[in-house]
């Protein structure tokens, strides 16, 4: 009967209840959404690279190096000469090294020049290796392996021909039109920036720039794909490289040695440390967002209590009837608590649905534009904590109209003051 009373009483005031439900739904969805994005962004960030002990690039800040080498955000300030690279990787402690050469793009997706070591040594998340969903790693100079998202978004299949553009904008005015690439492999989805990368060999990067000088094609000196193959395609420089060590103990020693490298100024970073630092910077913003959404939730809850308080006046008759029929004031208190919890619970369910639908719709856009890979798994331990906290908060706030109903029931007795 208590449940029926609460349910029907809410239905009776469905106009205001609907508005309360709406505002609560939006604010809870906002709160859960921001919290979800926060945890997802964090795990997305920290799982982008794993197993790599050092990342080496030209002298720059560690965040800049991390951003362009791992997240394909921003640009390198300078390159590393090929001889320097060759010298460093001869170090006895180095197990493997993956060279990276950046600077070109394909329809907004970054192109990364590397070698086949990339496919065997690169690790992400919990030391997961890259897996080819289709095809094989590149063998010929003008072969390319696409990240999962590039292939999916642009609808590329094995064997298709694509052209690269100079520079990293989505729209580029200088194209490497004369040297098309053949898609030979497509990687399985990783949930990292790898998905948005077009992989080619270092030789290919060298080949397409052979007839260029200072960032522009040299007029009258254009070479065809076949002609370039006759040249020496050993790269002159690379943008950065990733290093795996035989023993992790050597990490700091090697880092210091690279940072003090005589031939050219280099920076070696520990990806884990750099990721943590990056996260700390972003974390501030996330915390602020979380605080704002908490305040929005509080406002919505206070709004609900306000409407409840306003309705108490018109519900005095109802309360007096229940009292006369034998209800203890405590029963009225519980009734109001139950109504509040019902509305909150309903709002949480619809908020979860709203969040799920929005994420489902925004998932691809977030991945494409911001490199954020958000899972649809919104029911997690933290979201359950939030749900509990929201219910508790609403119950605490509901004591205000609850106590009011209780005290009014005692004071007014059976008189109905309309």
């Amino acid at each position, binding site marked *: 009967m208590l449940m029926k009373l609460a349910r029907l009483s809410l239905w009776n005031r469905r106009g205001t209840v609907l508005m309360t439900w709406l505002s609560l739904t939006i604010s809870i969805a906002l709160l859960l959404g921001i919290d979800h994005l926060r945890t997802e962004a964090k795990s997305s960030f920290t799982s982008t690279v794993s197993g790599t002990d050092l990342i080496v690039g030209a002298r720059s800040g560690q965040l800049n190096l991390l951003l362009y080498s791992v997240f394909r955000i921003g640009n390198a300030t300078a390159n590393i000469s090929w001889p320097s690279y060759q010298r460093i990787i001869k170090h006895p402690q180095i197990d493997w090294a993956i060279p990276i050469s950046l600077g070109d793009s394909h329809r907004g997706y970054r192109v990364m020049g590397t070698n086949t070591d990339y496919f065997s040594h690169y690790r992400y998340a919990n030391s997961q290796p890259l897996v080819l969903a289709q095809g094989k790693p590149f063998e010929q100079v003008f072969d390319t392996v696409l990240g999962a998202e590039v292939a999916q978004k642009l609808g590329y299949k094995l064997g298709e021909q694509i052209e690269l553009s100079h520079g990293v904008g989505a729209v580029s005015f200088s194209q490497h039109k004369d040297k098309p690439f053949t898609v030979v492999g497509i990687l399985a989805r990783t949930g990292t920036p790898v998905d948005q990368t077009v992989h080619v060999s270092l030789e290919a990067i060298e080949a397409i720039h052979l007839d260029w000088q200072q960032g522009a094609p040299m007029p009258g000196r254009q070479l065809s794909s076949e002609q370039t193959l006759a040249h020496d395609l050993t790269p002159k420089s690379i943008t950065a490289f990733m290093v795996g060590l035989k023993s992790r103990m050597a990490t700091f020693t090697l880092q210091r040695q690279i940072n003090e490298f005589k031939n050219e100024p280099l920076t070696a970073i520990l990806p884990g440390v750099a990721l943590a630092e990056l996260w700390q910077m972003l974390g501030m913003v996330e915390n602020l967002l979380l605080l704002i959404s908490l305040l929005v939730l509080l406002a919505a809850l206070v709004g609900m209590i306000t409407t409840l308080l306003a309705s108490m006046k018109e519900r005095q008759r109802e309360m007096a*009837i229940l009292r006369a029929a034998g209800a203890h004031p405590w029963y009225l208190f519980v009734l109001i608590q139950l109504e509040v919890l019902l509305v909150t619970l309903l709002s949480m369910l619809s908020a979860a649905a709203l969040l799920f639908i929005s994420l489902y719709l925004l998932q691809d856009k977030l991945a494409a534009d911001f490199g954020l890979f958000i899972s649809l798994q919104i029911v997690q331990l933290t979201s359950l904590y939030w749900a509990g906290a929201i219910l508790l908060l609403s119950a605490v706030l509901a004591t205000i109209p609850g106590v009011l109903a209780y005290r009014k029931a005692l004071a007014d007795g059976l008189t109905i003051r309309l």
Partner: protein
Amino acid sequence: MTDKPKIPAIDLKQLQFYYQSGGWQLNLPGLTLHCGQHLFVRGVSGSGKTTLLNLLCGITRPVSGELYVNGQPLHQLSSSARDSLRAKHIGVVFQQLNLIPYLSVLDNTLLSSHFAGQNKTDSVNRAKTLLQRLGLQQDLWHKPATNLSVGQQQRVAIARALLPKPTLLIADEPTSALDSDNRDAFMRVMLAEADANGCTVIFVSHDQSLTQYFHYQLDMQQLATGVQPC
């Protein structure tokens, strides 16, 4: 007619009540009603009718004096004990707007047995019988209470008040919103049902013409003279 003849339905001695703010006060030297005896309480507004009803219902506690309902010392019981006593032994009918608008006629009736903690199936069966006897046919039972005429609503209120088989039925001007035909019909059906249940009726009104239905009357302006036979 009465299954508990020894214990008076209501018994009060030297009842006194006043508010802390002072001024007005209520003194009632004595009143004893046995089961099935009906009392008419007459008085203009402000004469303390509502206060008396609140005292009899156990909503408020007397400042001094003794008050027994069905043999239970209301003046000594805790507020929750008074609430459960009211749920089980006292039915209340208001002037108007007795029903919760969003509940059906049947659910409105069942409220009292719910608070009295009585068996649900038995209560539903009894409620249906009561409603039928009060002239409320089956087609009305599942309608929202607001669809009913005022006269019908008052009869639902009677059904609700009588459902837990109370010792006492307290009616606060239940006929004031009714026209004279409806009023007489209401009085007859209410008293007939009260008698059938062995229930004592305390009826508050300023309508002098209703005294004919009652055994005793009490004038709020002359409380010192006590209860007079009609």
